[in-house]
C-alpha cells in the first residue's frame, strides 16, 4: 500500500515537471498570435460587390462610417475614385530596439474596382520589420481590428 503511494507521488512529481517544461514557449510569438489573424485581405485585394439595392452615395457613406470607426486617421481620401488609405497602425513586439523585437504595421486601402455593378476592392497592407524598423517585408497576418472592419464591410455592403 505504502509502496503504491510512493510510486504515485513520484509519478505526480514527474508529471508536474514535464508539464512545466512543456509549457515554456516563446512569449512574443504567443502575443503576435493573440493580436493578429489570418485574412483573405492580407496584402491581397478582396472584392466586395455592393448590394444593388444600395445607391452609390449610400454605399460610400456606409463605407466611410465603418472605416473611420476603426481608423481615425485617414491619409488619403478621393471620393470620385472611391480611394481611401489609412495611416499605418503600428504595434511594437518586445522591448524597442532589442535584437528579437519587431514591429508589425498595417494600413487599410480601398478603391472602386467597378462602377457598374459597383464593386469595391479592399486590402490590408501588412508588413513587419526588426530594429531599426526600416526594412519592411510583407507579413501574412493582420491585426484583429483589421479583420473586423473587413467583415463589417462585407456584411454592410455586400450582396446578401
Amino acid at each position, binding site marked *: 500500500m*505504502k509502496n503504491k503511494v510512493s510510486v504515485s507521488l513520484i509519478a505526480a*512529481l514527474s508529471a*508536474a515537471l514535464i508539464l512545466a517544461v512543456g509549457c515554456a514557449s516563446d512569449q512574443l510569438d504567443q502575443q503576435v498570435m493573440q*493580436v493578429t489573424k489570418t485574412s483573405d485581405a492580407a496584402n491581397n485585394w478582396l472584392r466586395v460587390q455592393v448590394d444593388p439595392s444600395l445607391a452609390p452615395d449610400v454605399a460610400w457613406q456606409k463605407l466611410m462610417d465603418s472605416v473611420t470607426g476603426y481608423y481615425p*486617421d485617414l491619409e488619403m481620401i478621393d471620393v470620385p475614385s472611391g480611394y481611401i488609405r489609412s495611416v499605418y*497602425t503600428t504595434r*511594437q513586439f*518586445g522591448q524597442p530596439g532589442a535584437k528579437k523585437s519587431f514591429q508589425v504595421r498595417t494600413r487599410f486601402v480601398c478603391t472602386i474596382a467597378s462602377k457598374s455593378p459597383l464593386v469595391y476592392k479592399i486590402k490590408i497592407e501588412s508588413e513587419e520589420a526588426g530594429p531599426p524598423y526600416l526594412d519592411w517585408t510583407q507579413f501574412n497576418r493582420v491585426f484583429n481590428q483589421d479583420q473586423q472592419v473587413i467583415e463589417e464591410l462585407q456584411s454592410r455592403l455586400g450582396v446578401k
Partner: protein
Amino acid sequence: MNRTNKLPITIASLGLLLLAATACRADDIEETTNAAAWTPAPPPFQPFTVGAQVGTLGYGGGADWRFLNHLGIGAAFNTFSYDYHGTIESAPYDIHLHLQSEPLTINVYPWTHSSFHISIGALLNQNRLSGSSDETFTINNNTYSSPVLSIKQEAENPYLTIGGNFYFDHGHHVSLGGELGVVYTGEPKVFFTAQNTSGYPNSQYQADVQSELSKIQGYANDFKFWPVVKVSLNVSF
C-alpha cells in the same frame, strides 16, 4: 501597493504564532495521552498525508511522505483564476489573473513527535496575468489604443516554508494543517504593446512603449517575494 504588501506580512506573523501554538499543542496532547496507561500510545506520526488546501497560491491538493523520523518529501498543486477590469499604470485592461503552481519540497522535521516541519524546495510556477482592451489611453500625453499586457513569473522558484498540523484524533489521522513562508519569483517577464493609430513618429512611439514597459516592470517587481500562507485539511495514514 505598500499597504497590499504589508497585509500578507501581518497575516504571516499572526499565522506563525498560531502555528507555533498548534505544534506545541500537538506535543502537549501527546504527553497527556502517554500518561494514560490504559490507552495505547499513538504512533509518533503517520508517514503519508494527503489533503485539500487553500491559500495565497490558490486552492488545490497536496501530498507528503514522511519516510524518516526527521525527513520527508512533499508536493502540491495550486490554482486560482480571477477576471476583472482594472488599470495597470497608464492603461485600462480586462485582466485575467491565473495562478498555478506546484511546490516540490524536502521536509525536515526537527522533532520526531511533532508535525512541525521546515520545507525547502522549488515552486514550478505558471502564474500569469494578462490583459487587453479596445480602449484608448495616454502615455506621456500621447494617445494610443488597444493595449495588450502579459506578466509571467519565472518558471522555477526557490520555496521556503514552515508548517505543522493540528490532529483531531488520537491516531493522527485527521488534521488541520498550516504553512507559512515565501517564494522568490525572480525577474518577471513583461510584455506590453499598444497600437499607434495616431500616426506618431516611430521614435516617439518606441520611447512611449519603452516608458510604459519600464513602469509595468516596476509594478511586476513588487511581487518578487510572494508570501505563502496555506491552510489544509488532511488525512494521514
